[in-house]
């Protein structure tokens, strides 16, 4: 994917000027747009969302430089259009890359096997990482991820009730703890 260098101050000021003539208002709008772009790329399942967000902003700024008049679109819509294209380029790069960059951590390491020794290694890392969780989160994770499908829904319903939240909120809460665990396990597996 073709990337562009970081913005100069002049380009960045022009971008802000397009968002709003008032500097403070422009700054606020810029942050909202930036957060929205981060959300967009994460929604699309992109790992390197910050670099894709930066690239989107850079390209919009570069385009604004070439235009005599500002685009007749809401800034949010304009940024979204660029973000979509960058996502498609990202996907295209993934497909054509002959050497894969994704680590296959959880289905076995370099050999791609899933023998008992590799699984036990991952379990040991999880033991380690679960021990670092606080506030009963470890027990929450064990209850939530019960393997037995018939027990799972009832277990989650009871867990949500115990925590005084909806099952939907429980999903989100566990999702966040899961991401923390995943980062920890990845680090652990790198050391092993």
């Amino acid at each position, binding site marked *: 994917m073709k990337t562009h260098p970081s913005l100069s101050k002049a380009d960045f000021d022009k971008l802000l000027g397009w968002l709003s003539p008032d500097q403070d208002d422009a700054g606020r709008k810029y942050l909202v747009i930036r957060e929205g772009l981060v959300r967009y790329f994460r*929604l699309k399942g992109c790992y390197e969302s910050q670099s894709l967000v930066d690239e989107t902003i850079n390209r919009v700024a570069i385009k604004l430089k070439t235009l005599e008049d500002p685009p007749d679109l809401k800034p949010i819509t304009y940024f979204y259009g660029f973000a979509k294209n960058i996502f498609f380029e990202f996907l295209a790069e993934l497909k054509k890359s002959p050497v*894969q960059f994704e680590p296959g951590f959880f289905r076995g390491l370099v050999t791609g096997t899933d023998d008992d020794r590799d699984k036990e290694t991952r379990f040991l890392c999880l033991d380690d990482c679960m021990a670092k969780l606080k506030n009963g989160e470890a027990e929450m*994770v*064990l209850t939530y991820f019960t*393997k037995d499908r018939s027990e799972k829904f009832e277990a989650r319903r009871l867990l949500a009730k115990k925590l005084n939240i909806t099952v939907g909120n429980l999903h989100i809460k566990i999702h966040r703890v899961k991401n923390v665990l995943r980062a920890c396990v990845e680090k652990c597996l790198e050391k092993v």
Partner: protein
Amino acid sequence: MDTEKFRKYLLGDLSTEESEELEQVVIFDEEMSESLLEAEIVLVEDHLDGTLSADEELQFTTNYLVTPERRKNEEFVTLLAEYSGARSAARPVTEDRVKKGTSFIHQVRLAFFARPARLYAVSLLILIFAMATYFWFRHDGELGKLQAEYAALNGQDFTDLGQFKDIGTVNVLPGKVRGSDSTVRIGENTSSDNIFVRLALPIEFRSHDYYDVQLIKEKKTIFKFESLRAYPNDGGKELRIILPLKLLVKGAYRIDASLPDKTDSTVTYPFTVQ
């Protein structure tokens, strides 16, 4: 917006217009974004439970599992389910067990159970040291020959990128660029003995045409090339290097590119091989 619509969106079952309309709402509405996340979590679980219809299963694989992040997430959820099954059945989670996770014995178990060869390595330390000394002297000679061979190879004209179509290619960014700590996975199916490395040069270095390049592992220079030529590319300029795959064992590396006779003007390219 309803859950069913979110599910269809994730499966790629909405029209382009509907998808774009949904995206533009969701990305700027945090509550809607969380609802979509919830639908995504349930969808992944349904897939892992095997409760998706045949059409949904195909859509899930073709349209949803298209990024490494989503595939990693799915794998990790599977791992957690297996782990919970194994650990919950064996013993309940108690405070003692949580404490045990960080005990010295657990750490030792993690270090040695996962790689039993370490135990043998400790036991055979003296013999290994003697063998290492022998092989070091022998390897140094072999490395010198390899260095000379690849110095000659990298002195050739690399303008035509088509000549590298059968070789695995790696693009590495300078160390100051966010997200530039690249991880390189050397595939088992690679038929070539070499790997083609492309190093994007930052703006401030693009006016120069030649660079001295060093491949470094654990602060030791493994390979060194002098006066490698920089080539124009879409974004500016880059260095192009062929390296032997057998040099790139698992670990952290960096490539330093500096202007000839000016080692204080150096660009660093960190990467990790798995």
